[in-house]
């Protein structure tokens, strides 16, 4: 019975998720469907599900639409189809709060004795990590570009959630000062001063140029005043 329920859930995901259709494609646009590992080329007329991820290459773009929305993803960008939607402020706050439950609860002293057996020897680790980090940065930057386009299209809440997820899954992108300031400004626009303050405090821990430091300091002062007036 439980298995049947699971299958129904999975089927219902596939049936109800055909949210967008592709109106126009220029250049190279690829997609990852659901949890698939295989990239597919995107062509005009193709239907996109909410669990799909689309990625544009250099000098490429894609225009997608459904009954209520048109959205253009510009070059060197990536976006989860599920993020092209209006989010309520409540849902945004819930999504930001989800951070807190990502931490593993503190273990007590009664935790199981873990097996420490090691099979084989270390090899090729550094090279692999470097390679994967480069891949991660590549996708992460594209996702942040996509998030900015969401914000420009009015989906500011979705843009913030996308940025937050991207920073977590692709932490190398955290070093881009301008991108982080961009999303912090959106937090300020939405009057989420506490969250903005937290983000700026975190940004202050990076190695910054004098110009960036001054910019950061100026924004922190504005938020302090805003928090006092709140």
């Amino acid at each position: 019975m439980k298995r049947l329920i699971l299958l129904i859930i999975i089927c219902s995901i596939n049936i109800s998720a055909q949210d967008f259709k592709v109106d126009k494609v220029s250049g190279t646009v690829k997609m990852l469907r659901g949890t698939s590992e295989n990239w597919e080329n995107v062509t005009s007329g193709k239907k996109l599900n909410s669990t799909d991820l689309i990625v544009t290459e250099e000098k490429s773009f894609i225009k997608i639409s459904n009954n209520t929305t048109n959205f253009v993803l510009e070059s060197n960008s990536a976006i989860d189809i599920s993020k092209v939607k209006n989010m309520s402020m409540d849902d945004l706050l819930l999504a930001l709060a989800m951070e807190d439950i990502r931490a593993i609860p503190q273990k007590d002293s009664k935790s199981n004795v873990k097996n420490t057996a090691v099979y084989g020897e270390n090899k090729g680790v550094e090279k692999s990590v470097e390679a994967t980090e480069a891949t991660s940065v590549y996708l992460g930057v594209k996702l942040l570009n996509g998030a900015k386009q969401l914000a420009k299209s009015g989906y500011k809440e979705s843009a913030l959630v996308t940025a937050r997820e991207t920073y977590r899954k692709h932490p190398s992108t955290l070093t881009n000062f301008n991108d982080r300031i961009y999303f912090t400004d959106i937090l300020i626009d939405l009057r989420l001063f506490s969250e903005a303050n937290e983000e700026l405090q975190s940004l202050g821990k990076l190695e910054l140029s004098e110009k960036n430091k001054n910019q950061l300091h100026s924004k922190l002062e504005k938020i302090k005043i805003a928090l006092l007036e709140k």
Partner: protein
Amino acid sequence: MSGNKKLIISLLIMMLLTKLTYSQHSYELFGFSSNQINSEFRLNSFESNAGNYSLNKDWEFSAIYGAEVNDGNVSSNIFLISLGKKLNNDYFYARYTPGILAKFIINTGIELILDDTTKAKSLSNLFEYKEIFGAGYSHSFGENFSIGFSVRLFQQKTEEDVLDIYYDTEETAYFVPVTEIKKTDYWIGDIGATYNYNELMKVSIQSVNLFTVKEADISEKKYSDLNTNKEVIFGLTINPYKNISLQSFYETNNSYMVGLNGGFSTGIGNISFGISASHNNNIDDLISSVTPSINYSNNFLSISAIGSIFMNNNKTSLSKDNFKNLGIGNIINNRYSNDRILLAMNLALSFKPEKKVKIISLKADEQIFPTLAENYLTKPFATATVINLTNETITVKPSSYIRNLNKEAVYSPIIKASPRDTFEIPFYTIIGEEFSLINSRTISDVHFYLTTENNEPDDEIQKPILINDKNSWDGKIINLKHFVNSDLNFISKYSKQILNNNRTEIENSVSDLENFVKIKILFENFAKQMLYVSDPRSAVEYVQFPSETLNIKGGDCDDLTVCFAAMLEGIGIETAFIDYKNEDKISHVSLLVNTKLKPDQSSLITNNDKKIFIRKNNQNIDEIWIPIETTSFVNFNSSWEIGALQFYKEAITDLGLVKNKVEIIDIY
């Protein structure tokens, strides 16, 4: 009238002005010295307590020795011996009363000169009344209401000298004195009820001569018979101040009695004193008798000295006419009674210490799950609402014993309770290893005890409880972890054996991927031998131990998730249950597994970051966890994709994690 008598009467008039009255019919052998500080002993008798009310807690023996003064002559004897026993809410009492005796010799005024002597013989009548024994029973309905009855056997004996006339053959009349002896037994039964309205006031009602059975062939009432008119006595006791008590009884024949007593505690016990006065409707005096008393009591014994002073201002002469006209209503308290002093001793035969705490109510789990034993160490399986009955801070030691599950009583944390405080006490339990592998469900019982400073519990209560078998589960996903840990040693060896068989693949992998590769190898091995089998519907959810799942080679999602989690935990790979809560209460569980990879390394295992979930470890470092659906057996990648898709949709996109529709429960 002596000066002392004037003083006593003045006191009694003062008490009468308070409108409190005492019954007279019933004479109180203990002198109305019962109050709050000596209430553990029975200091009243059937004479004022036909309903057999007592606060006695267990066995109690009492004896009264009495001395009577008659025209300057003192006679003494054993007055009463009694035994009382409290059994839960029932109280039994029996007494033997050789001292309840009244004997009257009335001269008829006739004298005979016997023909063979010059001596004269006076003819007289002897009337003797006595109680042989009495017994009583009462039952308490809660703390405030008691109802009961008493039965007493009385014996009445008359010896009347009469003249018989004989005629000889010459018709000469001869007068011969003959003594006619008659004995009559009376069974008299009465009922009564006592109600404690509150701490300040107690009321009672009782019958007088409700049932009277005469064991004799005499159908016609004679003047010498004991007066057995039916009456009702109403009683009222007021405690206006600590250890001060006002007692009053009113009898429907317009007799009454009032009493006042008080007391104080000393380092070696309690001292009480009291005085009562009675008005008897059959006697012309306003105050027919006065009864002062003094009492000493401690936890083990009570000693009382009681005086009875009969005013007899209008003492009736003992004549046959008076007997005919006035009769005798009470053997020990009548118009002919002499002053008396009684010495009473009550002894607690089996001492029960004072109950300091009491369980008001108790909420307990209706069933116990042996495999969840660890839970019962930290989460109470029962909570009692308890009251401190004393005026001091006490230490309460709670304990419980579950038959068939505990080797001995299990003590829960000690609690200090403020005076008169009502508080809650949690009960925890320890399930011994030898009891944790129970294969069948049984109905048992659990005993809860509260102990203060003594070895014996102050209060205890018993409840039935269902002990489930080892595979029973309460349906809470969080408790599945106890099944994961149930045979971890076995499963650990099992997993290591599989990994050992695949050590080449592990050795050839990137070292950071070690956990991931192990997860994959173990799942492939697990999936190829498993079959999904639905859980048969039953009253209680059933979960297999991991070794049982491996042996049976199948199970439902709970069994399979528990088994694969145990395989990973057994080799030190962290896992967590994903609880997909469904509104129709049929939830689904799958597994989240820690690959130990850093987020930037995600492309080592996937192109699709929907398949990963980032969690911070205890060092605040992000690590990649992956969701796995354990009921899909195609291959590892398929199970990962299915698990990841459901997790991404329900937990992330639909915000299930923050809307409490999806919960991650770590296993450790």
